């Protein structure tokens, strides 16, 4: 991945696992001086407000460590659920899959204009 970190979430997250993930991730970003983090949630079929908040937290923490976060692979049903819950994950960038996510990170880190993908603050 070069200067990017790829995190794949495959199991249902509960409190302690999520805290552990946040700890590990922040430590790894700092250690590897990664500039970008890709969180792959394509295996997640159920997402609740807890996970939503966790993703937003990770994005915030990464930004503080000068790394951009992109969440990829959200399933349609999950997207609809989040929208119905009123969670728009502001501050988190998203892309359809890992490739698209990497393109997004590369173009934003190159300082060039973001051509596609989406984000919102």
């Amino acid at each position, binding site marked *: 991945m070069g200067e990017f970190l790829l995190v794949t979430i495959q199991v249902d997250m509960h409190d302690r696992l999520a805290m552990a993930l946040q700890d590990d991730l922040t430590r790894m970003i700092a250690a590897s001086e990664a500039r970008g983090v890709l969180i792959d949630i394509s295996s997640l079929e159920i997402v609740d407000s807890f996970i939503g908040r966790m993703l937003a937290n990770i994005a915030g923490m990464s930004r503080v460590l000068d790394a951009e976060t992109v969440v*990829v692979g*959200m399933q*349609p049903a*999950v*997207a*609809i659920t*989040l*929208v*119905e819950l009123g969670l*728009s*994950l502001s501050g988190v960038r*998203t*892309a*359809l*899959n890992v490739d*698209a*996510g990497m393109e997004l990170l590369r173009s934003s880190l190159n300082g060039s204009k973001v*051509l*596609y*993908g*989406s984000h*919102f603050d």
Partner: protein
Amino acid sequence: MTTKKSTGLADIMAAKEDIILAEWMREMKDSLRRSDLIKDSDLRSECATFLQVVKEALETVGPDFQSPAWDKVRQMLGDISRNRAKLGFAPAETASFVFSAKKPLFTQIRQKYKNDAEGMASEMWSTTELLDSMGLYTAEIYQKVREEVIRRQQEELLELSTPVVKLWDGVLALPIIGTLDSARTQIVMESLLQAIVQTNSRVAIIDITGVPTVDTVVAQHLLKTVTAARLMGADCIISGVRPQIAQTIVHLGINLLDVTTKATLSAAFAVALQRLGVTFVRETPQQR
């Protein structure tokens, strides 16, 4: 157990069947007869059969419309009403099938009870009660049939009207026709997100040229769809914003966040291509 009252009508119907039938047909004047929708011969046999089953029911338990002995009559009334509803009869025309039988029957009752005022009054009353129940029954069935038609049409409308079209590699268009209620929004969101995944699209153009009014509720539904698409990594552009809609949006203070909005689908398409870094080059004709 039958009383003199209830066998009265049955007797009359047995004795004077033909006259009653003939007069009944006459009562259903041309406008009610609808010979354009139903043949005279068919109507006649329908009426004859009807008189028959009514007479049988009367002979069995008397004028008790709700009793199981009258099932056949109710069945026949239901069929007649359903058929007429489908053929395009008005509800009044359907109910008058029954009500126009009153006059012929009353004529016969008057004759039979010529010298018996009491008997005449009570027979007329029970007959009128019976015919009223039957008339109301046909009206009820008619109503149910129409409601069923409406419900089915609504379902079809819901299914037909949410296509997702691929305009270009990575660009989808979602033309919405008609009002956007919450049921529709659900379907729209699901189709759009599925399409985004399948076509790997990064831009979705939601065209609302066919949406008659945009109020705060519709705007909310649109924004929900936009947010859902964004969560999946696709940007949305709303196109087809008519001048009146633009005015309404401002008047109602609707906040469209930072969604790009365009008046035409073509303008939106141009923006989409720009975002993807695609340009078209017009060929100049070669000079020789």
